[in-house]
């Protein structure tokens, strides 16, 4: 009964790791990159790959929250709206005495987390279906946006955010650094803490989890709050990178976040998955987008290619077990 009892806990086989969804997604990214570098000179250049990571950071950050929510058995359709609110709101909450812009950042992150918290309250206490609750929240925020921004674009005027968008300490974009930190935190929370185990338990079987003593309400509220916070960070990063916030800036990221999560092997039905898959999922997604841009297709073809590739990848990389 030693700790490394080979009968109770057989050594994880290399084949199991090599056959896992996250690893397959990494392979897919590598294959696509190699093929694209041969087909299109300049694709494999350091600068271009770095650019892909920079775009991937935006999708990856918002997908952190989406991963938590989906694993817990929910879905967050309000991430796009929260990103927009954060990007548009940051310049508006700036106060005169705050030269660095830190106050605005903290205020926006607090607000985004609070929005997520409200989503969680609706799902956990009012027992509104996650799709409905977050959809209603998105609608609500859209109204709020028109109220605060009036539809025009606002520019950042925030030194800290400008730095976040432009700086490359050691050649690595600041956004990517933020993403790396956030990923490490997310992976640790998901796989190395009791909280993470509760999130998996809740998504796999809420009733059995509750009867095992897991506080389903608190866990639910927490994952939506995390999603709100992650969307807030994403909104700020986008504002820094674009220099401007405008209504609709967050819209594309709703679908990307869900697609990245699912491509990474996390079950949309909840209870199984990992953020380790979402990371290559996000990079795969921006790579596909970049390639489609490279082939110089019209917006229509781009959209068709994107949808068809996502669908094909899903079919390739294993289907969900038929649960219903």
């Amino acid at each position: 009964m030693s700790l490394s009892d080979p009968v109770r806990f057989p050594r994880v086989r290399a084949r199991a790791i090599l056959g896992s969804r996250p690893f397959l997604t990494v392979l897919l990214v590598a294959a696509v990159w190699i093929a694209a570098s041969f087909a299109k000179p300049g694709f494999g250049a350091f600068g271009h790959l770095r650019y892909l990571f920079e775009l991937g950071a935006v999708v990856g950050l918002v997908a952190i929250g989406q991963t938590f929510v989906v694993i817990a058995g929910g879905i967050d359709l309000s991430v796009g709206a929260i990103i927009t609110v954060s990007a548009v709101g940051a310049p508006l909450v700036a106060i005169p005495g705050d030269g660095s812009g830190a106050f605005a950042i903290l205020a926006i992150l607090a607000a985004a987390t609070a929005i997520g918290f409200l989503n969680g309250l609706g799902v956990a206490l009012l027992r509104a279906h996650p799709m409905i609750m977050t959809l209603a929240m998105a609608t609500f925020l859209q109204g709020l946006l028109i109220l605060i921004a009036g539809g025009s674009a606002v520019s950042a005027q925030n030194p800290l955010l400008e730095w976040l968008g432009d700086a490359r300490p050691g050649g690595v974009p600041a956004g990517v650094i933020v993403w790396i930190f956030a990923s490490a935190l997310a992976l640790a929370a998901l796989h190395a803490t009791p909280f993470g185990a509760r999130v998996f338990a809740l998504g796999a079987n809420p009733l059995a989890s509750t009867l095992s003593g897991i506080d389903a309400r608190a866990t639910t509220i927490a994952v939506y709050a995390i999603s709100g916070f992650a969307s807030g960070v994403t909104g700020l990063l986008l504002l820094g990178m674009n220099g401007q916030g405008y209504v609709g800036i967050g819209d594309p990221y709703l679908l990307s976040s869900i697609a990245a999560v699912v491509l990474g092997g996390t079950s949309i039905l909840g209870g199984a998955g990992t953020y380790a898959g979402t990371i290559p999922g996000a990079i795969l997604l921006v790579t596909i987008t970049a390639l489609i841009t490279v082939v110089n297709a019209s917006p229509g073809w781009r959209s068709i290619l994107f949808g068809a590739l996502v669908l094909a990848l899903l079919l390739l990389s294993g289907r969900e077990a038929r649960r219903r």
Partner: protein
Amino acid sequence: MSAAAETGARLYFAVQRRRNRDARGLLLVAAAFLALYAYLFPGLLSVGGFAKFSQSWLPLALVSMAQAIIMIAGGVSLAIGAMVSLGAVIAATSMAGPLGVAGGAALVMIVGLAVGAACGAIVVRLGLPAIVVTLAASFIVGGAALLILPRPGGAIPAWLSDLLAGDTPVAAALLVAVVVLWKSYLATPIGLSLYSAGENPVAAYRAGAPVDAARIAAYAASGLLSTCAGLFVAAQTGSGDPVIGEAFTLNSIAAAVLGGVGFLGGRGAMRGAIAGSLLLSVMINVMYFLGFPPVAHYIAQGLIIVGAVALPQFTGRRSGA
């Protein structure tokens, strides 16, 4: 023969009456809002006013039905909006051409059925989750709409626009026709099996119900309703717009849920979805009429949706874990 037909008719209508039960409360609320609207805007009671109102309601009613069908089948569709756009651009590019109005309308319907059935086949036969498949489909369908018509344009023959969106309540008549068609569909074995396939597919399969066929047919019917809504929207505006349908995805879910259609399959009825869309549509009209800013529309809409879902929590507390 006549005696049997009589019991048959009696059974059929008794069944229909019982089904009204659940939608009754919602219909009352919608009627109250309608009355308020008529009070504020007496013009509603004129033929022209009623025609205008029914025109603003019809597309939402159609997409709500489209969403409800898929939800009853145990799924959800995020491609409704893209399908509406596709229907609109096909109508705007084909009807003025050699196909003519009839040919164009047929094309819109065939495309709707085919795309819907394809989504259904992927979900049902390959066992992929509906939400992901329809999400991917929304990109493909939306892209196709952009290919057909990269920017707003095209044309709908003026007479058709006048007919569908003029001063006569043709839209209301169309809605009645759609409801009658749906009723007849539900009176077929495959149509009625939809409820069983959505609620308990394994038991329905063992009982011999055509589970897969019923679900795929539901996706096809949903596609048909969505592209037809697009056709109507194009007729309203007189031209096509490749992104005109976007808002319909979310609104269709909202209306269906407002109408008591459940996410787990087999729960809810079409009359509920229609009532839900009516409520949403009247509300928007009333707020518009009272001069609320658009902000209030969004906020009120969000609150009402959540309120409708949360209400049962407070009125009927259920026991049991």
